[in-house]
């Protein structure tokens, strides 16, 4: 069942990874500030109502790859994420609702990270995130047209960008009834490192946030999908999580057409 893409409902407030590049490009033509070299032209007051610092140090003047290899403390992420969960918990009716909300909070990250991944491939910077992929996604900068390259993009480059390592497994549903289902496994999701879910909520997996990120990536690529996170603990990996991707009818239809057309 097709759900309208959620782009429209997305944040009005931007961590503007996704659009800063295009904005600054579009503003190149209108920027009339001759004191600034063209490549420093900003989306300044001439085109928006926003004030900028007198040193004009706006996001448009800073390189998008600046933070590419930057690191922050894992604790900071954990505290922010924990507070996101706590806040969400106060406004939900149950576990499913909580997971839905976490999913929604991850979704915009997926859209932005997708753009960031493409941008970094296209900009041809050395050892870019995409081309350093060990596996099949060695055909950037094209965006994936088929399901498999999309999945490899998620399993490899996306995971590496977020968690500094690829995901642990990628599988296709073996059931003939559910050819649209794929599974990505993470043995030890970073987002759950410090979290112990109470017994009475044992179904809950806070990596629903990551499921939302995946969903954002899929949607951003034009692959309508539902993504959910499920606990699949083993003795060795008590936090093992399966991300179940269910692609929509339209995607499966298109997949057949592309298959016949020989598109990879």
């Amino acid at each position: 069942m097709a759900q309208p893409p959620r782009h429209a409902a997305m944040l009005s407030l931007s961590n503007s990874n996704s659009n800063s590049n295009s904005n600054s490009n579009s503003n190149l033509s209108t920027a009339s500030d001759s004191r600034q070299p063209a490549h420093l032209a900003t989306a300044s007051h001439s085109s928006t109502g926003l004030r900028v610092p007198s040193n004009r140090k706006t996001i448009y003047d800073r390189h998008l790859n600046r933070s590419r290899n930057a690191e922050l403390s894992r604790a900071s992420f954990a505290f922010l994420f924990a507070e996101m969960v706590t806040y969400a918990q106060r406004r939900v009716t149950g576990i499913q609702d909580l997971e839905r909300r976490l999913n929604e909070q991850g979704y915009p990250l997926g859209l932005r990270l997708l753009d960031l991944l493409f941008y970094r491939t296209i900009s041809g910077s050395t050892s870019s995130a995409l081309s350093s992929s060990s596996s099949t996604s060695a055909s950037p900068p094209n965006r994936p047209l088929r399901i498999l390259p999309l999945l490899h993009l998620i399993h490899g480059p996306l995971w590496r960008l977020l968690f500094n390592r690829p995901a642990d497994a990628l599988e296709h549903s073996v059931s003939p009834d559910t050819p649209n289902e794929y599974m990505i496994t993470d043995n030890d999701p970073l987002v759950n490192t410090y979290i112990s879910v109470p017994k009475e909520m044992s179904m809950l997996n806070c990596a629903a946030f990551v499921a939302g990120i995946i969903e954002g990536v899929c949607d951003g690529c034009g692959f309508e999908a539902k993504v959910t996170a499920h606990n699949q603990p083993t003795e060795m990996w008590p936090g093992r999580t399966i991300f179940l991707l269910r692609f929509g009818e339209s995607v499966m239809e298109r997949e057949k057409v592309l298959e016949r057309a020989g598109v990879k």
Partner: protein
Amino acid sequence: MSSSTKASRIGEELWKTRVDKVNAELVTLTYGTIVAQLCQDYDGNYQEVNKQLEKMGYNIGMRLIEDFLAKSNVGRCANFRETADMIAKVGFRIFLNIAPTVTNWTSDNNQFSLVFDENPLADFVELPDDGRAQDELWFSNILCGVLRGALEMVQMQIEAHFVSDVLRGDDTTEMRVSLVRYIEDEMPPEEE
């Protein structure tokens, strides 16, 4: 050696040796989605968003202090000036890999400013161009709450607020921190 220099060294050493790292963009984007969610939940009422961010920060601060103490193994500060250096050079270093400048002390040593050259929480951020956000929203307000919560747990009541932010078009990002009081012991009266 000044307490500031010494704190800087401690902070840098801890950052290098004791802090587990994660991709900075994950943190930045996660904070962004939190603020965006609040803006949505409070329907663009930025005053309320500021308040909620401060409250979230307070909740975080009360927990984060244990992580700070466990990692840093530092003892109690002798005075508020030392506390300021500890926050700026050790706390901000181990949690955000920055070290804001401590400045603008009042003569009674009870108020200072933190001036931020870098703010990883606000990386890639542009406030909504709605004619209000730049006047009303303090995007990084969670940090004020973190300080309040963390210091309260070590018996200092403080008040913190931003006075400027480059996201608003200001030339600096500055937070004002005031010591309200040292919280007296809370022993049962009969033991006094």
